């Protein structure tokens, strides 16, 4: 365990999901600092703010109003400033198309939102404890989608 807090940001327009997300981290008892944004525009504003401490892991929902997750991914990947942010796609969709596109454009992992809370906790725990350096260097299409 690191002394510092792990900074985590979630961009999701769904209130329930944000609630589950936060509840899960609370129950996981990991030292995390979770910030949430309600949509893509808000996320990009937040990230662009010089005062913002950039998150270690960004959970990105795809289907959002105003600016969707995919657009955010493209913008983030363009900025070298955000190079150290690990991007986890966090979506209801498990369509091949979405998985393929986000993989190609530099997302680090793809999480399909689980349909029960226990699984959610397990997934999130897995993701935050992941050795990102190791994962990213050996990233391929097979291990991109998180399977439990």
């Amino acid at each position, binding site marked *: 365990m690191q002394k510092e807090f792990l900074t985590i940001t979630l961009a999701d327009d*769904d209130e*329930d*999901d944000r609630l*589950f997300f936060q509840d899960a981290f609370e129950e996981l008892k990991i030292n995390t600092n979770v910030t949430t944004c309600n949509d893509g525009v808000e996320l990009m504003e937040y990230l662009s703010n010089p005062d913002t401490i950039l998150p270690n892991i960004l959970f990105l929902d795809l*289907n959002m109003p105003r600016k969707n997750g995919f657009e955010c991914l493209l913008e983030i990947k363009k900025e070298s400033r955000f190079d150290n942010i690990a991007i986890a796609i966090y979506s*209801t*969709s*498990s*369509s*091949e198309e979405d998985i393929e596109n986000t993989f190609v454009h530099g997302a680090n992992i793809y999480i399909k*939102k*689980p*349909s*029960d*809370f*226990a699984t*959610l906790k397990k997934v999130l725990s897995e993701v935050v404890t992941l050795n990102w350096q190791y994962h990213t260097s050996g990233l391929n299409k097979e291990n991109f989608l998180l399977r439990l």
Partner: protein
Amino acid sequence: MIRIINTFKSRIFLNIAFVISLASIFFTASITYKHIVELNKSTDLVMKSYEVKLNIENLMSELKDAETGFRGYLLYKDKAFLNPFNNSRENVDKAFIRIKRLTKENKTQQKNLRELYRLIAIRYSYFDEYREIKSDYKYQKYFIANSKKAMDNVRKKTDEMSKLEDYLLEKREKSFKDTSFYTPFYALLIIIITLFLIVVAYIRINKDLISLRSSNDRLMVINESQKLAEIIGKFGSWEVNLERNSYQFSDNLYRLLGYEPQEFEPTLEEYLKTIHPDDLDFVKTKSANILELKELPGYTYRIIKKDGEIRFFHATGILIQNNFGENILVGTTQDVTDHQIYTEKIKKNNEELIEYNKRLKIYDESSKQAEILGNYGSWILNFETLEFIYSDNKFRLLGCEPQSFNPSIENLLEFVHPDDKHIIVNGNQSIIDKGELPTINYRIIRKDGELRNFRTTAKIYTDSLGTKNMIGTTQDITEEILKTNDLKYKNLELERSNKELIEFNYAASHDLQEPLRKIQTFISRINDNEIENLSEKGKEYMDRIVNAASRMRILIDDLLQYSRTNKSDALFETINLNETLSNVTQDLSETILENETTIHLPKLPTIKGIPFQIQQLFINLISNSIKYRKPEVNPIISIAYEKVKAKTENIADDSNSLYHKFIVNDNGIGFEPEHAEKIFLLFNRLHGKTDYPGTGVGLAICKKIISNHNGYIQAIGKPNEGATIIIYIPVDL
């Protein structure tokens, strides 16, 4: 024939001439001979006359000698003078005998001679008398007188005889003269006649010889040209002497039969051997009645050449009689194979032409009907005269009576919609400039005012006379355009509904799942934290909610999978099925282990297909087999594979195409055979949800995958005896 008569005449003439000349020579020769004989005779007679005369004179001279001698005796009494007298008697007798012999044919002279003999005898008697009496003068006187008288008589008689002989001589000399005058004349005549006849005969013979030689030359030329003609004309000639039963065949007849000239004996038997067996009786019948008919009517038959080739021969002949009155059949035989072939060809061509003509008529009629049915008209533009010809239906298309006006570009333009006139003008320009017309679409206003759409295509065509024409077809495509527009509209509609379906897919995958996921998450939260606060009934309801929600999730997942099983966005790749099946068993390892399932896998081929779909196919099949297991029997699944030809299998394809055939067999609960088709339908379930949970989508997905691969899927089953699924996937896609 004419030549034969000529020679014949000439021969008769020569015979007659020969006989005549022989006769005349014989005649003149005999006359001449007669003359010569006569001449000889007259010469003899003349000679005889001369001899007679000579002998008479001799006689006279002897008598004179005797007289002279006696007179000398008388004068001189010397008996020496009597010697001539004594000799003369002997000589007189001798001369007398000679005269007698010479004149034995002349009775007058004989008579004279006898008289003379008597007179001479008298004279001699006087001599004898005188010698006896001797010197009596008186007597002397008497004696002298008498002896003179006797001597005169003798002289008189000899003169008479001489005269007669002179007369005879004169006569005979005259006759000799005559004869000797005519004899050379006759001889000359003979020579002249003979010479004349020889000359005539020579001229005649020479003339005949020349004509013979020239006709011989002509015959040789004719013979040679006949031989050539036989070769060129492919015919041979022959001759049959019916009396002697002898045959003669020309060289070319042998050649026509494929033999060297005169290679075989020219006999009937040998010739019949060459005739085609099927035509042998025919030929025999044809040549049977020659003697009655006097000719061999022309007929055609087949022969077999030495080298086996079959040829057609035409034979014809005529009966003639030669100089000996023998019946001779002369004829020619021609190889008419080429002619026969040619004739047959012409016959065939003719028949074909008739057939073509018939077909053309039919075609003409049918094209008229086709124009009406197909709503098109045709036209021809003559490039040289720039004249148009329209078919009847082209007029009808314009709303006019057939051939009701003289078509031209100008009156065509009157029909064309004002906005499209430039299309026709440009098209016409293109025909004039480049000699071609691109396909053009334009609108016309029919005579009755209706707007129609036309399409025209045309092609250059050069007819057999070398005239360039443009043949075009103009079609009324109004209906077609309406249909196309309709189709376009329907297509758009389809595209729209397809888009809606994709949108629905997305909604189903995302929007529908989201609330469900939340429901399930909240349920899990209640189950985790609040379950103790619920009554027993509440707990039971909660269980049911959990089941219903998870069932809904499975349904949505399956449905999504089904709708995603599309061909369009997937690529066909080479798939090693051994790897695929290994992945499948990996994915299903949990279920497989749980159910203690045995799977028999053969060595599988490499096929062409959509990898994730093929994998899905086997996942569905194997999980189905496990799902519908018999409760008390561990599942055994065996997969068999072979490569087959379509036509040997019970599938809709009966070509020679090759298919991969997979048989997936299990020992599960099976199904009623009547459900074999039904199990592939979407949402179709054969069992209660409680016994065998399922959505009825699995096999429907399998069927969809197989149809995406242009394959076939069949199910065979019996209750409690397991199910067999047979899959056919084409080897070449």
